[in-house]
């Protein structure tokens, strides 16, 4: 008997569904790397994964354990290209990356992310690790999917520091500041899935994970949540999908 999915496994499955076949995806690490592997092995066999260390892959890494970082040797063996950060980021700034995954410590209703400072940057209360490639992906991908654990103090009215720009302060902001990419399309959390509205650019609740509800989502969000008219329960991964995710994270390092 298969154990039911954890919240993180639901996130992986939801993230995999964001990947369309044939797309070039800036993968990153942790949950997105699992989502890419799942998508590649199900509905998106022609998707390509790009990694900011300089890798392009088709097939997910051939593993008998967990991939901790994008630079672990199994992620290099069998790569289609092993090159420089500049060459990969060049494809991104050319507009050649369809989808990028990012996460952060704080997010707001417009999908702006903070991965830098809690409190005054000159005298921070918490120094977070920083952008890495996250801000670049946020600025330059055609479409961005945010994945992060949900908690009220992390889902704030306005982020204290905008490391990775989302839709800024709303409609027209990205065009105004000169950002070429399309910005956040989806926000996948431990509790549900939000989609950014095309007009208002706000995160709108599209689905809640099994065991959650619109109310529990509202309680765990620091802004007043708009809810889609067709809000529903997040589709649960099939047993086959779950098995694929668990094969990529056999010890449950990222998903338990």
């Amino acid at each position, binding site marked *: 008997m298969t154990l039911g999915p954890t919240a993180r496994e639901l996130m992986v499955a939801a993230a995999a569904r964001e990947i369309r076949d044939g797309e070039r995806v800036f993968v990153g*690490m942790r949950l997105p790397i699992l989502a890419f592997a799942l998508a590649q092995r199900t509905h998106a066999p022609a998707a390509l994964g790009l*990694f*900011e*260390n*300089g*890798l392009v892959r088709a097939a997910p890494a051939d593993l008998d354990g967990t991939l*901790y*970082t*994008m*630079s*672990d*040797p199994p992620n*290099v*063996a069998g*790569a289609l290209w*092993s*090159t*420089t*950060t*500049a060459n990969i*980021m060049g494809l*991104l*700034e050319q507009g050649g990356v369809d989808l990028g995954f990012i996460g952060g410590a704080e997010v707001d209703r417009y999908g702006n992310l903070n991965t*830098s400072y809690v409190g005054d*940057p000159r005298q*921070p*209360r*918490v*120094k*977070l*690790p*920083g*952008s*890495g*490639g*996250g*801000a*670049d992906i*946020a*600025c*330059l991908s055609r479409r961005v999917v945010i994945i992060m654990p949900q908690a009220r103090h992390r889902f704030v009215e306005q982020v204290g*520091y*905008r*490391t*990775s*720009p989302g839709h*800024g302060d709303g409609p027209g*902001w*990205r065009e105004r*500041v*000169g*950002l*070429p990419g399309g910005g956040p399309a989806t926000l996948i959390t431990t509790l549900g899935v939000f989609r950014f509205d095309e007009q208002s650019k706000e995160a709108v609740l599209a689905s809640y994970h099994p065991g959650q509800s619109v109310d529990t989502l509202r309680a765990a969000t620091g802004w007043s949540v708009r809810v889609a008219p067709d809000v529903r329960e997040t589709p649960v991964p099939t047993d086959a999908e779950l098995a694929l995710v668990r094969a990529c994270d056999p010890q449950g390092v990222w998903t338990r």
Partner: protein
Amino acid sequence: MSASKLVSLRDAIARVVPDGASVCMGTALEAAIPFAAGHEIIRQGKRDLTLIGPISDMLFDQLIGAGAAGRVIAAWVGNVSAGLGHNYRRATEQGEPHPLAVADHSNLTLSLALLAGSLGVPYIPTRSLLGSDIAATNHDFRAARDPWSGAPLLLVPALRPDVTIVHVQRADALGHCHAWGPLGVTREAALAAQRVLVVAEEIWPTGRILADPNLVLLPAFKVAAVVHEPWGAFPSPLQGYYGRDHASFAQYHAESGTFEGFRAWLDRWVLGPGDWPGFLGLLGPERLAGLRPRRRLPSEPLDYGV
């Protein structure tokens, strides 16, 4: 051709990394991080270094905790396995062991800064970080307009590190070296540097290295010293030689949660052993052997025939 540059790691760090230098490390992101060199920097009590690197996975956190760094120019500082870097937090939040100046970058802007340095040009423009607070709080950047289209741009000024330290698979004694696997900003950082310290897993005869001049990372005249230090990138991985020792990252994260804990970690793993072979001895041969590749995956030779 010139004389051998092969020296001990101790001599190399003593000579190539003076107090106050800007030092670029961790250029291949999570792989080939020159931990052996970093530990020797700590042992020699270097001070006031400017650390430059994209993500630095744990190494910068160790150098900061040891009091070696006065400034960090990086896109990300922490521990890829565990997230936050405790010493980075203590230094920036509480000034412990002393205050640390931070110039935030993204991986793209750090890459462009080093690329500009390698080209000898003053800056490269980008549309990345437009609207990001990084562009507002790192005053090294400058806002501009594209003179053709009028569109907003961010100008990323060149970085020319005093020293770039790279860990490579193989080098000759003159400084010609071969590095493979994802390169991150390695080539740009090496070419942008005033001088380069090459730490190599293996030392090969010059003829066997120069049999593939396209794979040579940088001209040897930029190389100030060559060090033979096997396992010198441990616990980060080195393609073809060893995998990543995830346990080291988790253990460091757990033990460095307090400054006292970090000092104990430092005594045990860095100051105690006295040198890198001593450190490796503490780990024991079985732990290292378990990281060795199980399959060889050799590339096809290139023919440079004439």
